[in-house]
């Protein structure tokens, strides 16, 4: 049957092999795949500033982006084409907090530049190729 030594070899050998493969694939993803899929070359300073704002305000704590985050508020990858820049800008400083359907968002105090940075950020995410996500709802009327 299997000896303890063989089991140990299985563990160490298997881990090493798959770690190596993963490292190789990761280098390809990080250097080639992801920058291509996300249009890395279209990242302006506004987009970068927008990403920083996204993190500083923990938007991910209510929303999802690329499907990642919390499930309390809408998915925002394609919000730029779905709602447009003016709608996006309108929600941030909305008095009392944006809450058109009863669920309240935090009321921020963003400057015009900050609002523009976030619009730039969402314009960039809107163009990302995510292997088909988010799907067009197949039963949508």
């Amino acid at each position, binding site marked *: 049957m299997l000896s303890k030594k063989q089991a140990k070899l299985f563990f160490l050998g298997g881990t090493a092999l798959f770690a190596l493969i993963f490292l190789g694939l990761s280098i390809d993803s990080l250097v080639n795949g992801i920058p291509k899929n996300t249009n890395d070359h279209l990242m302006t300073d506004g987009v970068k500033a927008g990403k920083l704002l996204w993190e500083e305000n923990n938007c991910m704590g209510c929303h999802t982006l690329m499907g990642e985050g919390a499930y*309390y508020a809408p998915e925002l990858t394609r919000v730029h084409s779905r709602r447009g820049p003016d709608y996006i800008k309108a929600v941030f400083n909305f008095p009392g907090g944006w809450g058109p359907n009863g669920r309240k968002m935090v009321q921020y105090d963003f400057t015009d530049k900050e609002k523009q940075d976030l619009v730039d950020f969402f314009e960039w995410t809107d163009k990302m190729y995510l292997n088909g996500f988010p799907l067009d709802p197949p039963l949508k009327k």
Partner: protein
Amino acid sequence: MKFKSQKIAYYFFALSMLLLSLQIVYGFINGFAHMGYDGLHEWIPFNVSVTTHKNLLVFWLLSGFMGAAYYIIPEEADRELFSVPLAWVQLISFAVVGVAAVIGFHFQWWEGRKFLEIPRPLDYLVAVNVIVFLGNIVWTLLKGKKSSTTAWVLTFGLIFVALLYLPGMIYLDNIALDSYLRWWVVHLWVEGVWELVMGGILSFLLIKLTGVDREVIEKWLYVIVGLTFLSGILGTGHHYYYTGGPNYWLMIGGIFSALEPIAFLGMTLFAVQMYRKGNKNHPNKLALYWTLGAAIVSFVGAGVLGLAHTFPSVNIYTHGTLVTAMHGHLAFWGAYAMIVLAIISYAMPQMTGRKIYDSRNGHLAFWLSNIGMLGMTAAFGAAGVAQVYMERIVGLDFMVSAKAIQPHFFVLIIAATVFTTGITFYIIDFVKFGLPNDEAMKTAEDEFEVVK
């Protein structure tokens, strides 16, 4: 308990109990908010409460792992912990960082990246803290009279937990690249090296509780952690399906992540088989319940429920919905919460001398918390599937579906109340144990000490 220095574990376990209690409070805030009662919005908006809830989880589990290591390593190494004062410094600084992080969240001091929300300055403090912890543990093991597979699997697990924290500290402008590295922490933690920690603790508990020969148990430990990495490393790809990764991740991540449940199935069969093979006479029945329970519930929560939404063709619909919350709760509970509660149940009689092995409170704790968590999982599942159907398939507006699933959160809260009652009973027993003491060294003898 063989060595006085093992008693330091108690204080880590006590910290875990405090943090778990607070985590539950914030869980209720989240549940009520989802149900439409967001009364605390002005002071604790949802992103504050959900971030606090998740980070308290990670802190209490890490504190539990540290306590487990401080208890297990001296015993496996057959010597006192290298430095008890250092362990105290490490405990207090860890608690301070945790408290600072949680308070900070309430003032929007955070990094805003899921699971890695603690601000960068605190990341550095955590890193230092963990280095101190690891130094103490590794030195104890290296300078010990004995060592064991169990001890080294646990220790290497903890070392790699620390090393894998580092990729999360790299700032990248491209959010998809940022997220790619973020999963090196989150996935390779909970579907990777944390399983080494769980395996090590499980191995230790099975050796103590069943009396089965160490060589047999440790051989199977290697098989299980081997299966974990064989599947889990490339299984990381299931986080790269729809977050900007190249499309080969769909195939690679899909196949390998579908294999991940095998490692958990291995743990289940292993634990149950060792129990059946053993002599079933160990008096600490509660520790046995939690140990076997962890092996079984982790398979259901992490394994089965993970499998349920890991295929790319399913995941494209469920990605970023409450289905993830369904899986996450039962997975974390079964794999990591229960194994920490198991080592606590085993170690507390040893450290305090009070033989609370089979109490009514303890049994109520086990059953109510598990039934409650299963109920919560079902509630999240119902909410999640309904959300997927309404939003992703029919294309209804987010808030339309959010309002429609509110009743499921009512069920969630009822189930969470059952769960909390269970945890309350657990903590009542924890308090009843009293403080650790040196007299306990001779009173709580393990009848099934395996002679090396």
